[in-house]
Structure formats: structure tokens, C-alpha cells
């Protein structure tokens, strides 16, 4: 594949050249950075550690229509559409890695056409991290500040210029459409330095060895309560997690126009599992905290051979009561299974 570069002050031209793509990039919306369709390239924000809202919303939006119907009728109109080719500009390597994990779930036996159309139609231009944040631990989760997994191209911010390394045909085609200049050894060397520097700034880590196998043995263990007792069940850890994919399905209608829609949901809400009878298999925050951690670190890998966490640190950063997933996992390693009630 190719090595390219562009001058940072030419960003608007580079994005503007992508006429055949719908381009999404990190954009400041008030105090929040999230991925928006680029209308004005000057709104693109590249000096961020990571977007507050993960770009999972580009593949499975907060709310989306599954199909439409006329109330009282019997005709159903699917809402699956083939989107324009999309280019996601500036996605962090951890969030691209998250897509590869969620792919397994959405493709499991019954491929999900809504998700898959968007995934297939997207070109991912990653931006390597130069300044990892305090709670980043991607290097423990199979990623890294310059991980190429899941990406079509990886960019490095070298100050005045941006070095672009294309990784797939899709990425190379888009780079050519951008009209980029060729890059050489100087840029490659500078990129290596950025990566080395970033790696040294990652301070948090986790040895995941043995965790997936051990967690089920801690099912009744009291250690969960150290964390669940202060949990507020706000759900932010899951809504802002790039691998959390759970959703609700609801019917909505306006006049005679009806739609069935799905929307992000969270295992941290008691309504998530409550039966019609009123019985709830996960009645308290203890069971819900246990399910969140066990799903990511034990149930998901048991089914799909990969832990559903990329070490982006968002659940730690945004938890209003400072519940720290690394702390939970470290304590789980120390907890003796035999302390658990039989």
C-alpha cells in the first residue's frame, strides 16, 4: 500500500476532494467531541485524546428505524438502505478495533443488515494517538496508539504535516481521491517517533490472563458489592463504550404512520431484564455490575474468542462515582473463588 502526506493547513482541500464520500470526522459540539458529517472542514477537531461519544454511533446509531408500516395495514417497508460510501476520518485505533469485535456479534448466525451495510460501505482513516489519556490501556487489549487493526489507513499528526499510511485497497483508493502527496522516509521515521512517544505515555495496564475463565466462579462473590454499592445505574459506562451493542426495540406511531425502531439500551437499567410478571433475574446493581463485567470479559470471549473491551478508558473517565473497570478486574484476580457462596 502507499505512503502519503498532506499539509495540515490544507485539511479543508483534502476533505473537499472526497466528493464521492460522505465524510465523518471528530467535531466539537459544545464541550463534547463526537463524529459528525463534515459540512465545514474548519469544524474538524484533531487535537483530542478521544471523542467523548465513540464512533459506534456511525455503525449503529442511538436510534434507527428498522421498518415502517401503516397502522392497521399489512405492508412492511424495510428501512435498510445502502448508504453512500462513507469515510470516517480521524477514528482512533481503539475504536476501529472495537468495530472488529462488534462485527462478530452482528454477524453471528443472523447477519444484521442495518449494521453490515454501514460497515461494508465505510472506509476508516485512523489517527494514531500522540497523547494517550490518563486511563487508556489499549496496549493490554490487543491494540495500541498506532494499531492498524480494522483500519483502511492510519494517519500520524507530525505537527505541520499529516503522514498517511494506507493499509487496504479501499484506503488507497480514498487517499488517491484526496490528491495526497507521496511521503518518504522522513515522515515514516517521524511517525515511528510519535508511536514510541505515545507508547511511553500509556500508564495503565491489565494482565487479562485467566480472567475469562475465572469470572464465572465469582458469581456469588461479595467483592462485586464494593463497586455496585456506589453505582448509580446511570448507564454511561455502557452508552459510551465502543463495544457495548445492546439495544431495545420499540414501536412508535404518529397518526397512521408507524415504525419499529431500535435504540441503545443498557444492562445497567433494571427494566432491561424485568419480566412481565415483575420478576427480575438481575434485581440489584450487584447482578447488573456483575453482568456488565462478566459479559465483556468472560461471556463474550467464550462465544467469540475476544474480550469485548479495547481499553479506551471511557467507562473510567465518565463514571460519575469513579468506578474503575481495571480496579474491578484486578480485585477479581485477587478474589478467592472459594469465598463465594456455594
Amino acid at each position: 500500500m502507499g505512503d502519503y502526506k498532506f499539509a495540515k493547513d490544507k485539511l479543508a482541500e483534502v476533505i473537499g476532494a472526497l466528493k464521492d464520500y460522505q465524510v465523518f470526522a471528530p467535531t466539537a459540539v459544545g464541550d463534547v467531541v463526537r463524529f459528525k458529517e463534515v459540512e465545514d472542514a474548519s469544524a474538524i477537531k484533531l487535537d483530542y485524546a478521544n471523542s467523548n461519544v465513540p464512533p459506534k454511533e456511525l455503525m449503529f446509531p442511538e436510534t434507527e428505524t428498522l421498518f415502517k408500516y401503516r397502522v392497521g395495514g399489512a405492508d412492511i417497508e424495510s428501512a435498510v438502505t445502502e448508504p453512500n460510501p462513507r469515510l470516517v476520518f480521524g477514528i482512533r485505533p481503539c475504536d476501529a478495533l472495537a468495530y472488529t469485535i462488534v462485527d462478530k456479534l452482528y454477524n453471528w448466525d443472523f447477519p444484521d443488515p442495518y449494521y453490515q451495510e454501514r460497515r461494508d460501505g465505510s472506509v476508516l482513516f485512523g489517527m494514531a494517538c500522540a497523547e494517550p489519556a490518563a486511563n487508556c490501556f489499549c496496549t493490554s487489549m490487543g491494540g495500541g496508539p498506532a494499531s492498524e487493526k480494522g483500519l483502511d489507513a492510519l494517519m500520524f499528526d507530525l505537527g505541520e504535516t499529516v503522514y498517511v499510511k494506507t493499509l487496504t485497497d479501499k484506503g488507497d483508493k480514498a487517499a488517491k481521491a484526496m490528491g495526497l502527496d507521496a511521503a518518504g522516509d522522513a515522515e515514516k521515521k517521524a511517525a515511528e517517533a510519535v508511536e514510541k512517544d505515545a507508547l511511553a505515555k500509556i500508564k495503565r495496564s491489565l494482565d487479562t490472563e485467566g480472567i475469562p475463565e475465572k469470572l464465572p466462579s465469582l458469581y456469588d462473590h461479595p467483592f462485586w458489592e464494593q463497586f455496585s454499592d456506589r453505582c448509580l445505574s446511570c448507564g454511561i459506562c455502557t452508552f459510551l463504550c465502543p463495544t457495548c451493542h445492546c439495544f431495545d426495540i420499540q414501536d412508535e406511531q404518529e397518526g397512521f404512520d408507524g415504525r419499529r425502531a431500535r435504540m441503545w439500551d443498557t444492562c445497567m437499567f433494571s427494566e432491561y431484564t424485568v419480566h412481565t410478571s415483575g420478576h427480575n433475574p438481575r434485581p440489584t446493581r450487584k447482578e447488573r455490575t456483575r453482568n456488565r463485567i462478566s459479559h465483556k470479559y468472560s461471556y463474550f470471549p467464550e462465544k467469540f474468542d475476544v474480550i469485548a473491551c479495547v481499553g479506551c478508558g471511557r467507562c473510567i473517565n465518565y463514571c460519575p462515582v469513579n468506578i474503575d473497570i481495571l480496579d474491578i478486574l484486578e480485585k477479581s484476580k485477587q478474589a478467592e473463588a472459594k469465598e463465594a457462596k456455594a
Partner: protein
Amino acid sequence: MMDESNPYLPYIVRIEETWYETPVGDRAVKTFKVNFVDDKVWDTWKHMPGNCAMVGRLGVGESMFCISSSPTEEGYLRFSIMEAGKVTRALHELEAGEMMTVRGPLGNSFPMEEWEGQNIVSIGGGIGQAPLRPVINFVRANKEKYGDLKVLYGARTSDLHCFKGEFDEYREEGTACHLAIDVEEKDWPHFVGFVPDLLMKVAPTPENTIAVTCGPPILIKFVTQNLEKLGFTPEQIYTTLEERMKCGIGKCGRCNVGSLYVCKDGPVFSYATLKTIPEAFA
């Protein structure tokens, strides 16, 4: 199978007939006999006892129900639904000629093929008889492939037995049908007491036998204990689980017990499997 290009799109079915299994009122059970509006669906539709489907009403929503007819009953599907919440209330309003939606078949099924050559004991309580009815009817329709069939079924009162009209058919065919009610009623000729006690009275032999049970969790718990007392191994005992569900295809997340999704890996589980998953009994 479902529309393979989009597993979220339901089939439209027309209700051919409805009737109440139990007295009209709170928690009444109504049976819907339905057929696909598009007859071609039958070309690809294939279900087995135990399979479920999302049954719904456009504008309200859908919920997961077991298909209460056996595939040996051809040309229609049956669902026996207790009125309990928003979706079931809206479904209960529907009558013959009206439309519902069906998305399925979903989940796994009872291993009917694996059970060939064995005796089958069905032990049900209340609406828990709905997933057992297709097992019973499948075995009745394939008598030569199975050993002895025994039906044990209880409800709080005789009014609350589902599928009442079929018990005499079982007996006429020589299938033992042991009924129970919780409290004494005038002229009730059968057992009075709980289903686990009925099980001990009938005391089926575990030899070359599969026991399949469904009902409220408390029934499943004590039936399972009693089956073990009678010498059944966990591998000989099957039941079904239920959890809140939305997608039915293992994606929306909520119905997991441990690493298993009830909608997809279930609803049918052997007791041997469930014993390894503490959350299965939560």
C-alpha cells in the same frame, strides 16, 4: 426460515380461529390459530417442538412465545398466549380474520431425533404446557419411533388446564394422562395436589426415558429434584427457560444466562447444562 436478508422483518399472518383455554379475565390464556398471508412462506418454514417465534401487533410491539403446535399439525401455527402485559393485551384484542406478525422460527428445539426409541414423560404446570404440547403431539404423530408416552399436567384449578379438549384423545390412544389440581373440587376424579407430588405418585421409571418439564420456576425446581430422586440423571431431564427478549436472534443482549442467550442457544436446555450456569436459576 426467516427472510435471510433481514431477520427483523416479520411475516404477516391471518388469524383463522381463536378460543380461550382458560376463563376470560386476568391472565386468561387465548389460543390463536394462524396462517401466513403469503402462502409461499410454507415452502421454507420449518419448525420443531421447542422453537419459538416473536409474535406481535404492528404499532404495539412483539414478544417471544413458544409455537404451541407441532410441525406434524400441518397448514397452520398455534400460539397459546396468557394476557399479562402490553403486547399480550393487544394480541388478546384480536379475533379471527385480523392480522398479527410472526418472526421465526427462533431458538433451538427439543432433540426429538436423539430421543427416538426412548419413553417420554411430559410434566407440565399451567401455561407451561404450551411448549410441551408440540412435543406430545410430535410423539403421538410418530408413535412408531418412540416408546411409551406419559402426560402429567397440573394447574391451580381444573378451569386453568390448557388444551382440556385433547386429554381424552390422549387416553383413547392409550397415552397415560395424569391430571392434577391444587385444591379439591367437586367431582374431580383425578389427583389433588402439586405436580411434583403427582410425579412421585406416578413414579415413572428412568430406564430409557426422557423427562421434559415446563411450568413456573418453583414447579421446575421441585419436579427436577423429584426426578433425580426417581433416578433420572441430569442428562435425561429437559426444560425450557424464558427471559425478557427483544431481537430473538442473539444480538440485543438481555436474555443471557451466563454466556448463553436463551433466545438462540435456548430456550431448550438439558438440566445437565443448566447445572453449570448459576444464572439459569436467577
